[in-house]
C-alpha cells in the first residue's frame, strides 16, 4: 500500500504559527533590533554593537534595581513557600471544609493585578486606610509613601497576601496524593510528626514544590503592576524593581537602546536562574 500523503494538518498549525510570531518572535526580534542600535525616531538606526550592554552592565542604577529585585524575590520566596506548606498542612482533608478552604484560597488569585495594587494602596494609606490608620493608632510611625522600610513591608505583605495561595494549592495537591499507607506505616514505626513531615511529606511534595518555587520566582522577578500601582517605585527608587526601572527607562526617558539591552539581560537572568534551579532539582531526582 502506498502511504497517503496528507498536508491538511498544516492548515491547523498555521494559526498557531501566526500567533506565536506576533506574540513572541516579532516583539523579541524588535527588542534585539533596538538593543544593538541607536535610534532617534523616524526609522533612522545607527549600529552600536554591544555598547548598550556594556553601559547597562556597568550602570549603578541597574545594579541597584537588580539587587532590590533579588532581595525582594528572595524574601517573598522565603516567606511564601514555608507559609504555603504550613497552611496546606493545616487544611482539612475531608468534609465540607475542603471546598470552603479551596475557594477562600483561590480568591486572591482571581483578583486582577492592578486591582490588588489599588486595593492595598487604599488599605495602607496612613490617614484613611484601615491598615495604615490602625498601625498609626497602635503607635507605629507608619507611612509607606514616605518611609523606605514601610514601603518594602507593604509591598511584601501585599505579595504574600496575593500569591501564598498558589503555593498552598500546589502543596495541598501534593499532600493529597500521598497514600494513607505511608502515614499508617510511619505511625507504626513510631515516627514523630516532624519526621513524618521531613521523611514522607516533603520528599513526596518535591515535584510540586519545584514547580511552585519556579512559578513564584519567575512571577516575582518580573513583578510590575502591583508595586507600580501601590508605590510607583518609590519613595525615591526604593521599590523600583527591575521591570519598573525598565519601563521608566524605556517609556519615561525614551532610552530605547539601553532599555532593550536591559530587557535582554533581564530575560537571560530569569532563564539562567530557572535552568540552574531546575537542573539541580532534577539531578537529585535521577540519582534516587
Amino acid at each position: 500500500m502506498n502511504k497517503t500523503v496528507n498536508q491538511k494538518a498544516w492548515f491547523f498549525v498555521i494559526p498557531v504559527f501566526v500567533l506565536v510570531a506576533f506574540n513572541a518572535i516579532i516583539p523579541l526580534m524588535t527588542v534585539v533590533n533596538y538593543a544593538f542600535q541607536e535610534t532617534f525616531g523616524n526609522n533612522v538606526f545607527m549600529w552600536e554593537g554591544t555598547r548598550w550592554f556594556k553601559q547597562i552592565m556597568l550602570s549603578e542604577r541597574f545594579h541597584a534595581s537588580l539587587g532590590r529585585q533579588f532581595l525582594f524575590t528572595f524574601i517573598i520566596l522565603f516567606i511564601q513557600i514555608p507559609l504555603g506548606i504550613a497552611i496546606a498542612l493545616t487544611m482539612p482533608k475531608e468534609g465540607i471544609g475542603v471546598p470552603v478552604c479551596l475557594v477562600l484560597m483561590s480568591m486572591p488569585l482571581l483578583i486582577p493585578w492592578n486591582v490588588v495594587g489599588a486595593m492595598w494602596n487604599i488599605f495602607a494609606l496612613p490617614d484613611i486606610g484601615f491598615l495604615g490608620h490602625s498601625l498609626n493608632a497602635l503607635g507605629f510611625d507608619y507611612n509607606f509613601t514616605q518611609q523606605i522600610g514601610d514601603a518594602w513591608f507593604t509591598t511584601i505583605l501585599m505579595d504574600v497576601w496575593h500569591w501564598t495561595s498558589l503555593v498552598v494549592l500546589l502543596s495541598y495537591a501534593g499532600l493529597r496524593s500521598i497514600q494513607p499507607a505511608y502515614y499508617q506505616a510511619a505511625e507504626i514505626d513510631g515516627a514523630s510528626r516532624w519526621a513524618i513531615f521531613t521523611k514522607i511529606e516533603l520528599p513526596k511534595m518535591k515535584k510540586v514544590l519545584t514547580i511552585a518555587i519556579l512559578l513564584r520566582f519567575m512571577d516575582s522577578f518580573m513583578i510590575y503592576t502591583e508595586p507600580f500601582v501601590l508605590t510607583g517605585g518609590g519613595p525615591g527608587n526604593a521599590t523600583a524593581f527591575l521591570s519598573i526601572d525598565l519601563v521608566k527607562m524605556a517609556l519615561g526617558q525614551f532610552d530605547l537602546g539601553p532599555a532593550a539591552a536591559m530587557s535582554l539581560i533581564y530575560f537571560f537572568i530569569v532563564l539562567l536562574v530557572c535552568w540552574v534551579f531546575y537542573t539541580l532539582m532534577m539531578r537529585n531526582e535521577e540519582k534516587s
Partner: protein
Amino acid sequence: MAKVTLKGLSHSYLKTQSSDADWAIRGVDIDWNDGGAYALLGPSGCGKTTLLNIISGLITPTKGDILFDDKVISGLSPVERNIAQIFQFPVIYDTMTVYDNLAFPLRNRKVPEEEIKVKVHEIAEMLELSSTLNNRASGLTADGKQKISLGRGLVRSDVNAIMFDEPLTVIDPHLKWILRSKLKELHQKINRTMIYVTHDQTEALTFADQVVVMHEGQIVQTGTPVDLFEKPKHTFVGYFIGSPGMNVLPCQIKGNDVIFNGKKIETHQQIKKSNFNKTEVGVRPEFISFSNEGIPVKVLSVSNTGRHKIVDTESETGKIKIIAKSNEDIPSGSAFLKFKKEYTYTYGDSWIIE
C-alpha cells in the same frame, strides 16, 4: 510477642445500622497463640482488611474488645500496641538509604546507635539486603522495597505481632514464590505472631498454620489448610478454597439417605436431620474419578494445565469439574463419575450437616 484475642468484635463504617449488611464485620471471635502464623482469607469486601486495621489500631471497633496477652488494648494507639504492618504497596522512605530505612523505627524509639547497627545488619542478612544497605531505598525493585517494609517490622525485638496486608500484590509470580517461602522461613526463625491478610488462597494456605476464612463480615471457618481443603464446613469455603473450587450441587434428603441426580449416594456423614430449606452435596474436583458406573455425565471440555487436566462435565443436576492426571486418558462424550465417599459432604442451608 503476644497472644492475640478478639472478643465479639463488630464494626460498622455507618453511624446507625439497620441490617446485617451495614456491618463491615460482625461477631468476630478469634484466639491466636503467641508465635503462630495465621491468615485471614476472603474476597474483597469481606471485612478482612477492616479486621486487620482494628487489630493494628488504625480503626476503633464499634463493639467488642481486642486483647494482647489477656490485656484489653482496645483504646491504645498503633505505637502503644507495638505492632508492625506491611502494606500492599511497599512503603519506604524515599530519601533514606536502605540502612536508614531499617534503622528508622529503632531511632524513633531512641535505641542506642551501637545496638541499631547490630540489629540492622542481622535483619539485612536474613532478608538478603546486606549488599544494598548503603543504596538509596527508592532505587530498589518492588520486591526489594517490600523486603525493606518487612525489615522495618522485624528489627524491633519488642513487636507483639507482624501484620501483612496482601504484601505480594505488586510482586511478579517468580519472585512471589521466593518471597513467600522467605516469609515462612523467617517465621520459623524468629517465632513471632504473624497475621497475613489475602484473597489469594495459595498465599494463605502455604503461609499459615491456621487460616480464618471470612465471608460477608463473618468468620465461616477456622482451621488448618488441610481441614479447610478436606472438610469445608460451609459451601463458601468449598468454593473459595481449591482451584477450581468444590462442586456444590443440589440434592435431596430422604430419611437418612442422600439422593443426588435421582440416585442414592454415599457421603461422609450420617444424616440425622433433614429440616433445611436447601440441601446440597459438595465434592472437590480432586476427589472425583471416571468409572464404569455411577453418575452419568457428558464430557464438555478438557484443559491441560501441564500438571493436570481440568475436565468440565455436565450431569442432569448441573456442571461437575474433575481434576485428572495430565497423562490420564479422558473419555469423550458420555462417561460415569464416582465420588470419593470420605470427601463427599452434605450441606444444609450452606452449612455442613453433622
